[in-house]
């Protein structure tokens, strides 16, 4: 198999050039999708026949929770790429995606707690889904702390990659927690492959919100990675030229 594409993507300069062209489109797509999806979900979707209007929290809770898990899978993938091919950009990806994943987990947990109060009568219960999501947050925090605690960049990259790969065991536990255990949390309500369990008027805004959250992640990740690449490559020829350009644009 031909792996040149991977090494091309691993080149910091190549990434910096390409991502600069991607970023504005991702940001625009994210803003549009979120504006339409959330307005639709808040004001136009019909109320749930059991939960009334409190179900509208689904339009932020489900996208954030899905994204929190997807980002962790991305960290594990970046970890494997970093360990196997020693590509430095993989570590940049891992370090810059981890805080976004942590924030998304916080959003999922917080909105879930607020949703739980009117629906279950409690902000928090130690049920399998909630507990495994809390563990996901601790994994993210552990990764961030580990990445900052080790001063040698290569050692930090290896340690974080290992932790990311080992911690991925938690993702299927989160996904199947609602089936394996008798949880208060309801089973999955959003799937791309199965027929939606809710009317289109409820499901479509959810789809838009999910896509909006993913584009949001893409845009923020690109922005964070570009700065980190510039930082790490500051002594190289192209980065010096780029920093000069950015400084000139500012004045």
């Amino acid at each position, binding site marked *: 198999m031909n792996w040149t594409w991977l090494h091309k993507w691993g080149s910091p300069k190549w990434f910096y050039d390409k991502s600069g062209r991607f970023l504005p489109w991702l940001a625009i797509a994210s803003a549009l999708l979120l504006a339409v999806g959330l307005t639709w979900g808040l*004001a*136009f979707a019909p*109320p749930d026949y059991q939960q009334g209007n409190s179900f509208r*929290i689904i339009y932020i809770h489900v996208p954030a929770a899905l994204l929190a898990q997807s980002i962790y899978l991305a960290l594990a993938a970046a970890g494997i790429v970093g360990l196997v091919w020693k590509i430095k950009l993989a570590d940049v990806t891992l370090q810059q995606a981890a805080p976004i994943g942590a924030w998304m987990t*916080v*959003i999922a947990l917080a909105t879930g707690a607020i949703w739980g109060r009117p629906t279950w009568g409690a902000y928090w219960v130690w049920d399998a889904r909630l507990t495994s999501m809390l563990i996901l947050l601790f994994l993210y925090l552990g990764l961030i702390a580990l990445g900052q605690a080790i001063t040698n960049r290569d050692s930090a990259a290896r340690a974080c990659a290992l932790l990311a790969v080992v911690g991925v065991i938690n993702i299927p536990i989160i996904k199947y927690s609602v089936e394996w255990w008798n949880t208060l949390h309801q089973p999955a309500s959003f799937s791309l492959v199965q027929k939606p369990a809710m009317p289109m008027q409820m499901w479509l805004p959810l789809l838009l919100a999910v896509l909006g959250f993913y584009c949001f992640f893409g845009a923020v990740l690109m922005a964070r990675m570009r700065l980190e690449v510039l930082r790490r490559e500051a002594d190289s020829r192209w980065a010096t030229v780029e920093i000069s350009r950015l*400084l000139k644009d500012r004045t």
Partner: protein
Amino acid sequence: MTAFASFADFVAMDGHSAYIWSAYGLCLALMALNVVLPLLARRQYLNDAARRRRREALR
């Protein structure tokens, strides 16, 4: 068209307003933070780079 009869009904959310608006407010605030913090970090980095270059130019 909308699921509500009036704007006041929309805000009231059938008695669930406290839950809906606190959840959405918190979510949007945290997302805004995810945008603002990298932008501030970038500005800080460029400020430092400018200062470094001025210092090196003096030497």
